[in-house]
């Protein structure tokens, strides 16, 4: 350990206060903050800069370190989430331990929320607290854990297959775990994808071929995750393989003389022979990619006549019917009945509104937009008009959201193809009744485009554009302690900064288990998840922040209170020692939350980087600053 890293030397603290172009300096008197900081104990230099994050700002810190003027750093600027890593990086480049650093947030916590003299006082207090803590900082080393060059992908749809392929391409071994005997997921239920019109079967065949022919990828069909433990770099997984039953068995009966890798329309790609008896598979994986997909909303009986009227079907059902139609006639024929006219209803099971829509039995509503149903409906409408020019098509919508590349064309083309639109309000949805003058059904809808005047449409078929729902993943969520959003989809750490990561290191999200997406977006997300997982695993070891609990075994009396309180399974365990049971931390699993510190009656636990002594120093500094108006300690 170099002298600079020792932390044993008397603290010489450098304080650097940022203007953030006026973001901070418009409301905080930087001069005063710098002056007061300069008067604090242990502070060797106090400086300011317009943008501390800029190269000249960072260079200022590096020069002071290299000149031996300072051995601990405090930067007062924006939120640490933005630039803490930037300044730790600068310190590392200057050859100093990056954990001899403390950050004071005087933008989000001061200048953006307080104006006037109080703003300067608060900034000075936060800087004083940071200086107080900096004096108590110890050099730390990141936790390094060995990483198994193996990833497990759960879910064999487009997301799972894409992620598996991309992980294997980085030289990693991959386990692809699929519940059913088939690969392809929900895309198997499509005929054509949008916006290219490419056949779903061709897309899936190509993707499955890449997966099935890659020696690094092992496909486990008919498998579910039974047990899960471990941490990034070394997850222990147990898979349960079960012979197929129910719907899967029925689907397998359709295989006939197909060979593995072959696509069966509306079933999927048949991967391999299913297991004949139950079996368990144990895996050690460095990372886990979740690609468990979505489920289609199933309308409850009676919603838009579904389940009561045979002429009311869902869009996936229509797609399957149309795929079987060769388009010989002028009109669509369903169940032997000619369809002169049909109505597609949008937003079924999507964009539900409390107080208007009926919650599911569990009390839940799908308040989200499912993002694909508008374009899928319009795609179907265009195809209907093209194949069956004598079948009239109505689209009953709330808003049209054809947001993606090439999707607006379907909207325009549907209009040009003679599709007639009507816009309804969520509180006044279309009503479906059996019978009509010359039709099987009558749909009545107040048309917002006609100031709410009611239209009566005589149609022979009603098609419900059902939305996407989160799959029931409760088993997986419980086993892996996965965060779930208010919309019941799995929830990433941050939608922009860490869009495919979960808070637990080494677990990634790919595709519609996270949110409704179209197939292109799913492929993007899968690529991102694979890249993130690959970046960690290809290094052979994983570096984790050192802010974890540390137990002073001399003080520990083995009460086990910390194990009880711990939020991360396995992060603290009781071990037998010659002195009796003692607590021990597994740093790879510890989240650094500090709950154990709070419950330990012996004060035997410290959180590295956030020790009790450091907290005390901060509190003392704030008290001194606010009471004594910057009096020297």
């Amino acid at each position: 350990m170099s002298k600079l890293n020792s932390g044993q030397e008397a603290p010489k603290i450098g304080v650097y206060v940022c203007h953030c172009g006026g973001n901070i300096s418009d409301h905080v008197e930087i001069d005063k903050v710098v002056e007061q900081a300069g008067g604090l104990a242990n502070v060797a230099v106090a400086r300011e800069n317009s943008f501390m994050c800029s190269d000249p700002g960072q260079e200022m810190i590096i020069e002071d370190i290299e000149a031996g003027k300072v051995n601990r750093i405090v930067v007062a600027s924006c939120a640490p989430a933005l630039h803490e890593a930037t300044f730790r990086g600068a310190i590392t480049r200057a050859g100093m331990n990056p954990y001899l650093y403390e950050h004071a947030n005087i933008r989000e916590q001061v200048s953006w929320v307080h104006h006037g003299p109080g703003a300067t006082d608060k900034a000075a207090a936060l800087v004083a607290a940071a200086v107080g803590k900096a004096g108590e900082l110890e050099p730390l080393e990141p936790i390094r854990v060995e990483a198994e060059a193996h990833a497990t992908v759960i879910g064999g749809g487009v997301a799972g297959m894409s992620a598996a392929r991309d992980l294997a391409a980085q030289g990693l071994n991959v386990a692809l775990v699929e519940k059913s005997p088939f690969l392809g997921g929900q895309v198997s239920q499509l005929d054509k994808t949008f916006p290219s019109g490419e056949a779903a079967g061709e897309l899936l065949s190509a993707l499955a071929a890449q997966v099935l022919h890659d020696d690094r990828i092992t496909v486990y069909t008919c498998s579910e995750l039974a047990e899960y433990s471990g941490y990034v770099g070394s997850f222990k997984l147990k898979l349960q393989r079960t012979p197929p039953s129910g719907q899967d068995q029925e689907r397998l009966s359709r295989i006939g003389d197909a060979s593995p890798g072959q696509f069966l329309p509306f079933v999927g790609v048949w991967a391999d022979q299913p297991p004949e008896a139950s079996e368990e598979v144990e895996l050690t994986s460095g990372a886990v990619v979740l690609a468990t997909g979505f489920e289609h909303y199933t309308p409850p009986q009676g919603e838009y006549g579904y389940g009561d009227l045979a002429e009311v079907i869902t869009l996936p059902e229509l797609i399957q019917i149309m795929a079987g139609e060769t388009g010989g006639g002028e009109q669509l024929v369903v169940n032997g009945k000619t369809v002169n006219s049909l109505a597609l209803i949008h937003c079924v099971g999507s964009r539900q509104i409390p107080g208007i829509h009926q919650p599911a039995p569990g009390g839940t509503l799908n308040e989200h937009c499912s993002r694909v149903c508008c374009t899928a409906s319009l795609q179907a409408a265009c195809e209907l008009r093209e194949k069956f020019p004598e079948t009239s098509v109505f689209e009953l919508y709330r808003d049209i959201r054809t947001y993606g590349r090439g999707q607006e064309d379907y909207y325009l083309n549907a209009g040009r193809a003679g599709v007639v639109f009507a816009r309804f309000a969520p509180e006044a949805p279309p009503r479906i009744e059996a019978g009509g003058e010359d039709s099987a059904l009558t749909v009545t809808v107040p048309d917002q485009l006609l100031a709410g005047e009611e239209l009566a449409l005589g149609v022979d078929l009603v098609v419900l554009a059902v939305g996407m729902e989160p799959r029931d993943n409760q088993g997986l969520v419980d086993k892996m302690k996965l965060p779930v959003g208010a919309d019941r989809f799995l929830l990433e750490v941050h939608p922009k900064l860490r869009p495919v990561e979960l808070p637990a290191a080494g677990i990634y999200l790919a595709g519609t288990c996270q949110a409704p997406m179209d197939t292109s977006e799913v492929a993007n997300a899968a690529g991102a998840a694979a890249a993130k997982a690959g970046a960690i695993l290809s290094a052979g070891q994983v570096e984790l922040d050192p802010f974890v609990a540390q137990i002073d075994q001399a003080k520990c009396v083995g009460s086990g209170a910390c194990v009880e309180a711990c939020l991360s399974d396995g992060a603290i365990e009781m071990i037998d020692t010659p002195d009796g049971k003692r607590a021990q931390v597994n740093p790879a699993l510890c989240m650094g939350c500090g709950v154990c510190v709070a419950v330990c009656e012996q004060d035997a636990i410290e959180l590295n980087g956030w020790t009790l002594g450091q907290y005390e120093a901060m509190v003392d500094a704030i008290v001194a600053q606010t009471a004594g108006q910057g009096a020297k300690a």
Partner: protein
Amino acid sequence: MAEFPFLEVNEAIRLYGGEDLNACMQCGLCASLCPWREVESPFFARQMIRLGQLGLEGYETDEVLFGCTTCNKCVINCPREVDIIGIMRSMRAMVAEAGIRPEPLKTASGSCHANGNPWSGKREDRMAWTQGIEVPEYGPDIEYLLFVCCTSCYDQRSQKIARSVARLLDAAGVSWGVIGPEESCCGESIRKSGDEETFQKLAGSNVELFNRKGVKKIITTSPHCLKTFASEYPELGGEYEVIHSSQLLAGLAAEGKLRLKGDDGRKVAFHDPCYLGRHSGVFDEPRDLLDQAGAEVVAMPREKDFSLCCGGGGGRVWMETPPEQRFSVLRVNEAASVGAEVLATACPYCISLLEDSQKTEGLSDSLKVMDLSELLVENLAE
């Protein structure tokens, strides 16, 4: 009582020339940009198209279906580039078949049938505008046919425009001539008013005449003739190089062939005629000519693409509009508000409506309404 959509009507509108009917996504931008929003009016293009899409009734009135002045502002701003005028024209044509048309439009159509012009003037009087001047007859050795708008042939005030254009063409040494009473109305406004049959008759007769005379290039005094000759005659077998007088004159002035004194000195506001500006994309040439004449061009708030229609297009020039609904009233006041001494324009319909409003608004002493050609004639160098 719920309405039952009647999709056969939807189909018929598309067959009559409103192919874009279902391409309209009902965003409503058309209705919100429409000059009718400046006054009280029941005409909303979006709503009218909506009724057409569903084949429902309720749009057939003079104020709604025949309200549109075809100013083109909605069309050039439509996010779907829907041919709104085509839809409106088709819907007018459909109700016309049922005999539902405003009386003044029936009169104009009848006159076109009988006299070849909508103003009930005698065919043989078509050259009345040439009184007092010599005009060359079009022949094989002549470069341009000068096609004078029916309005400028028969309306006394408007005849001055035609004579001014003739004078300028002579001054610039252009090779031009007229055919005379054999000419028929271009048919632009008759077609927009929903009388497709009469348009076909007028246009067919003109195409036959022009082709027989060997016409290659046409100068028009009206932007309406310009638009229909250039865009609608080719598919009827009439392919000509068509130019509005202001375009030709601007080129000649730039070449030094049209010599102006350049001492006008007045504050002049230029009113962009819809069919010259938004329909034909001619914005700069008239302003260049005003510059050359030494006028001080003052901008009005609504200019060029956002010019305010005078109210005379789409057959409205033949219909009576109550004073409180006249766009031309708003326009003359707009010109006065920017301190213009002259409100210049380049369309016989605009002149007619603007001058009328200038009088009713009591602006006769302070604001002069002039055709661009009239202003240029005053400024001709000796």
